[in-house]
């Protein structure tokens, strides 16, 4: 069993990703306040949290406006995810939007940015210091982002699909180069197997991406450069399969398919790399959107994302070797029956 260890590694990594990636909770966050604006005077409202522990540890709450703090006068937890709070708002808050912050021992610091419109604005208030020691949360959880919410876990499935597809297409590209150099039909079979399996991963990437787009952007398909890139990629490799199907002679088929594969692969790569930077994209890292790594890929996501990438790529290569064995056996049995 020479060389089996990486198959085991891929299984272990993917089990880890599926179990830990789906069972780890999202971090706590403030998601909603029951009033839209605050005016000078007594203001009472309800704050809704997600995965918070307000009942266990009563939180401290304070408003923040242009760096100035205003502490709550009374805090009454209703449940773990809801708390009723009262502020005495003075005249003179500076900025038009006011944020609300909270802290408790278990959940750490929480914030809902620009939660309220401010009324009765002026040149600032006199702060009363509120005794809060802001220690960070220690529990292991994924970042809780507006819009993304629980779908952030899809990062471990959607993105590695495309990485795996790219790796398999690169294998296919390499084997196509070998076909042109040596005219080896075995290399041609490898190129074909890699394309077949990479198309499977492209389909999985499209499905997971489509579900994610529906959940976050509200649509199954949008006209986004990355989506156009994915569509072009799938069309190119479908055309590759059709080209192969239209040539009966084995050696000629190998050569022409290799030429098309090399031509298309290079152009596709240039397209996927450059075009998203020319036009706006909804994806992170394009058109002014920050990349995942700069704000979302914190240590908890990294601990799952990198194993997921390695695991999926190894699984893809494994599937490719199996597919290749099947096609070799088919070729052998065809030869035998002839």
């Amino acid at each position: 069993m020479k060389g089996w260890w990486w198959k085991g590694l891929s299984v272990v990594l993917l089990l880890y990703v599926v179990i830990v990636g789906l069972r780890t909770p999202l971090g706590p966050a403030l998601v909603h306040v029951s009033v839209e604006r605050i005016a000078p005077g007594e203001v009472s409202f309800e704050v809704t949290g997600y995965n918070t522990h307000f009942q266990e540890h009563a939180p401290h709450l304070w408003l923040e406006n242009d760096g100035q703090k205003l502490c709550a006068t009374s805090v009454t937890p209703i449940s773990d995810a809801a708390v009723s709070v009262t502020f005495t708002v003075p005249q003179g808050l500076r900025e038009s939007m006011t944020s609300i912050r909270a802290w408790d021992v278990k959940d750490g610091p929480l914030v809902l940015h620009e939660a309220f419109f401010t009324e009765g604005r002026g040149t600032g208030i006199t702060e009363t210091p509120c005794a809060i020691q802001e220690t960070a949360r220690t529990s292991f959880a994924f970042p809780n982002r507006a819009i993304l919410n629980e779908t952030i876990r899809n990062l471990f499935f959607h993105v590695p699909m495309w990485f795996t597809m790219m790796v398999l297409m690169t294998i296919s590209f390499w084997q196509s180069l070998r076909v042109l150099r040596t005219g080896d039909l075995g290399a041609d079979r490898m190129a074909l197997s890699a394309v077949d399996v990479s198309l499977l991963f492209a389909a999985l990437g499209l499905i997971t991406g489509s579900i994610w787009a529906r959940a976050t952007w509200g649509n199954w398909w949008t006209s986004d450069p990355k989506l156009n890139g994915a569509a072009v990629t799938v069309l190119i490799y479908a055309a590759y399969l059709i080209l192969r199907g239209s040539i009966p002679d084995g050696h000629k088929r190998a050569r022409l398919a290799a030429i098309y594969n090399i031509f298309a692969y290079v152009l596709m790569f240039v397209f996927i790399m450059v075009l998203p930077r020319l036009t706006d994209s909804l994806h992170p890292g394009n058109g002014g959107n920050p990349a995942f790594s700069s704000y979302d890929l914190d240590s908890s996501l990294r601990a799952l994302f990198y194993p997921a990438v390695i695991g999926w790529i190894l699984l893809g290569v494994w599937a490719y070797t199996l597919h290749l064995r099947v096609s070799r056996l088919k070729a052998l049995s065809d030869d035998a029956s002839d």
Partner: protein
Amino acid sequence: MRSILVEKFARQSLRSLRFNLFSAPSAVKLFFAFFAVRTMRSTEIAHLLKLEWQLDRRQKHAWGSMALYVVSTVYVCYQGVRHLSETPIWNALFWIILLFAAFNALGRSFQRENSGRQLYLYTLASPRSVVLARTIYNAITMAVLSLLSLAAYALFIGSAPLEGAQMGTFILVVMAGGVGFALVLTLISALAARAGNGIGLMAILGFPIVLPMLLSVMKASKLALDGMGWDVTGKYVIWLLLIDVITVVLAWLLFPYLWRD
């Protein structure tokens, strides 16, 4: 007179290099060998270009069919929509017409050779010269054809969107788009011809590869029609040139494998 002497010497040194490559490779000889190869290639390409031109002049129906294809497509669209004044639709329809005109015009680029004449060409010329000559010829063809299409299109469908446009930039983008289609589709046309499956296969193979180019060129021409200057459209044209260069290099590298049988 001097240049003839230099070329003569270069050819001689190349000949001696062929036989004595391992015995006496001096730097001078290598230098002149390169020079000789370059001059030979460019004259070869010039001859092939001339051949293409003569072939097309002899078969006048080739040019006529391209022009007729464009005009009749535009006329069919005219019957469908009469006059278009909305810029985005005007722009999109124009590029669709030009795209299919390109497929139609370039599809025959490698189809007209029968195998006997191809073998003859194969023994005469280097495959790289053949593909470069075809590419250059197709690029010139498409530059002319794109202008012709634009004229026919503006005549029938209406030139309202052109009034607020940056005309210089727009025409440049149209020609760059046409030339870009020609560069990408030349190798595809050769592939489809070799696979023996004609224009249908060419559409299937060419469409996904042309699509990225089409998207950026449509965007650039839309911007030019909206009156945006070179500072906005420039990056799309540069990106187009980047694809062009990569395409020509790939065709140059890959064509010899396609050419031999």
